[in-house]
């Protein structure tokens, strides 16, 4: 009798727990697990949503690496984009975080203001503003000519356009910055005092205390931002449409063009999976190297 009630209450508890996570569980199953599995299946078909579907085996993957020259071009562009934008963004975010960590008047106001770009950042509206700022007769060029500097074809020159787009990503530094700021606040003040007592200056303190203590946050930001950058789409879609000469043709846009433009949903799914694998490999590499450069105060659970 006793045993029975205890199993019953145990059953109830487990059941209740599941009920509580149900909103998440449904979201996960419907919005993540299902599309993930469906896209894997589609990647082995010639699925065209407006017309037909039939199984084609590995054909999509073979076409991708043997026939479609744009795949390598856009993969190259995407990796360069991530390699420029992510470090630049982290450095910038850390810099702003350090400024905002100072004891200034109205500091909370500044913190809010500096976070704003991240709220707008991913939106189409800001991408359009970016286009207007950097177009041939745009505000940036007007300012350059006002200062008697040569004009730059920010969006029309294939050598420059990718950098212009990268700046947009760097500008959305807010979320990384907030994390850095939290990390900075966590660093015990006595470490800096000890450094001062030993005669260390600000630069010594930065490289020997601030950076090492922030490595877990740098690590987290690096992983999240790299994933985000490799999947980026809006900037190249709205500002340059992948041009000029595919110089800003990010992989996300390539997938979109094939999937929704040419209705080759099977092929686009296959490309998504290639991107997914690239991201997993890259993340694994960053994790692997983290042992040698990330410092955990509590030993990192080892």
């Amino acid at each position, binding site marked *: 009798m006793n045993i029975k009630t205890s*199993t019953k209450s*145990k*059953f109830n508890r*487990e*059941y209740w727990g*599941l009920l509580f996570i*149900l909103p998440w*569980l*449904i979201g996960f*199953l*419907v919005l993540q697990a299902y599309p993930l599995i469906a896209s894997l299946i589609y990647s082995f078909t010639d699925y065209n*949503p*407006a*017309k*037909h579907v039939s199984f084609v085996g590995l054909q999509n993957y073979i076409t991708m690496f043997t*026939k479609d020259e744009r795949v390598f071009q856009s993969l190259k562009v995407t990796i360069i984009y991530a390699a420029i934008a992510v470090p630049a963004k982290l450095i910038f975010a850390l810099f702003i975080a350090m400024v905002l960590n100072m004891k200034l008047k109205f500091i909370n106001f500044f913190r809010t203001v500096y976070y704003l770009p991240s709220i707008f950042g991913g939106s189409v509206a800001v991408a359009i503003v970016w*286009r207007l700022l950097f*177009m*041939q*007769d745009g505000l940036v060029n007007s300012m350059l000519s006002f200062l008697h500097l040569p004009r730059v*074809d920010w*969006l*029309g*020159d*294939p050598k420059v356009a990718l950098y212009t787009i990268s700046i947009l990503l760097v500008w959305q530094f807010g979320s990384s910055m907030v994390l850095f700021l939290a990390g900075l606040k966590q660093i015990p003040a006595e470490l800096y005092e000890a450094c001062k007592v030993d005669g260390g200056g600000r630069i010594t303190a930065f490289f020997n205390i601030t950076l090492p203590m922030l490595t877990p946050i740098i690590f987290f930001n690096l992983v999240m931002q790299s994933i985000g950058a490799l999947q980026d789409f809006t900037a190249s879609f709205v*500002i*340059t*449409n992948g*041009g*000029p*000469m595919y110089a800003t043709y990010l992989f996300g846009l390539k997938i979109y063009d094939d999937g*929704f*433009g*040419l*209705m080759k*949903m099977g092929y686009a799914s296959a490309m998504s999976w290639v991107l997914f694998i690239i991201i997993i490999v890259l993340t694994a590499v960053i994790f692997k190297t983290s042992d040698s450069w990330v410092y955990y105060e509590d030993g990192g659970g080892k």
Partner: protein
Amino acid sequence: MKRTVRAISIACSIALSLSLFTACGNKSNSGSASATSGTDKQTQAKNVSLRFAWWGGDTRHKATLDAIDAYTKLNPNVKIDGEYMAYDGYEKKLMTQFAAGSAPDILQFYPSWFYDVDSSNFVDFNKYSSVVDLKQFSKSVLDEATFKGKLQGLSGGVLSTTVLYNKDFFKKFGIPENTVWNWDNVIQIGKEVHQKDSNAYLTTGDLDVINRLWAYPYLSQQTGDIWIKDDYTMAFDKPVLVDTLKYIQQLYTSGTMEPLGTTTAFIGKMEQNPKWVKGEIGMVVGLTSSLTTMVAANPNAQWGVAQIPLRSDAKQSANPVRSSVLISANAKSENVDESVKFINWFMNDKSAALIVTDQRGTPASEASRKVLVDNNKINPLVAQAMEISNKNPGKIPNAPSENAEIWQINKDVITELAYGKTTPEQGADKIISKYTDKLKELKAAAAK
């Protein structure tokens, strides 16, 4: 025990999440069902809510929304939501909606897109001839909208290609207004203009325009044919293509055409180009349906229209007079009858014609056109441009000639030319070799 509990729990949650699906499904049905329920037996008309999607510029949006307002005042039981946007991206959105089963009830469409969507999605207007007055439309216009024997759309208007020029610009640079454009004098005058003022260009065009309204007619006037034949072979040979690409290259090297890089921000919306707004561009080769929007972008200037460039030995003008858009009805809609009723009003009714005017080109419906002519409602520039084109209309291209992937191959080569990364010879080789594969693929896909 634990395992069974887990199994039960998972089963429960799956069941629950499935019920979420069905709940959603029911909801979307019940939305329209509740709008229609209970009224069937009553005398009053049932309430319906329709979605109407179109692309266009601001003036078309406004006119169409006004027409919807007028219709819903006449038919208070009908509610119509407009879903409108610029051309760029419209097709992708629509195709996705078809795939997801959420396509609008009434939609603006383009004849060559019929190849990409299953026919079962479209209402055959032949079956609704008692509701829609088909006698108002000419045979050629109906033929263009007929696909596999079904009349899948009604022509929203006819259009052609024209030169729209800025009279003030022409005066400033001493270009006679009665210039008859052939391809050579475009470059000659364009060069002079850019030499006089380095900010000014005789003309501009985004990639679509260069491909469709410059390269296409330049080549087709020589061959007298369309671009790709019905059997999926090229309707031209290499020398003509090289010559065409040489011409495109010259447009850029001579400073006739605004550099391609600065136009990329305005694909499909040339009227937003600041140079056009400021009057630093002399003319565009454009579709008559876009005339009012282009003119509205710079209302202070004086405007004129002219025949598109035509070579003296042209075998055809390569300037087809054709439907600008079709208005189709979604066969999978729950309110097909109401959609068709609205389309008939929108196309043929006099009061509708006076509101919509020539925003989708000169009306194809005889009745609507007559009303507009009688009331002087047709934009005189558009009327004049259509008159010029009607004197010497070109062949109407088939679907393969306007295939998006074929166009993309052209556009890639044109871009490389404009940036000086390839020669016309290399470009032509590239186009021909890529066509060979792509045409085979398209032919196989069409046979499916």
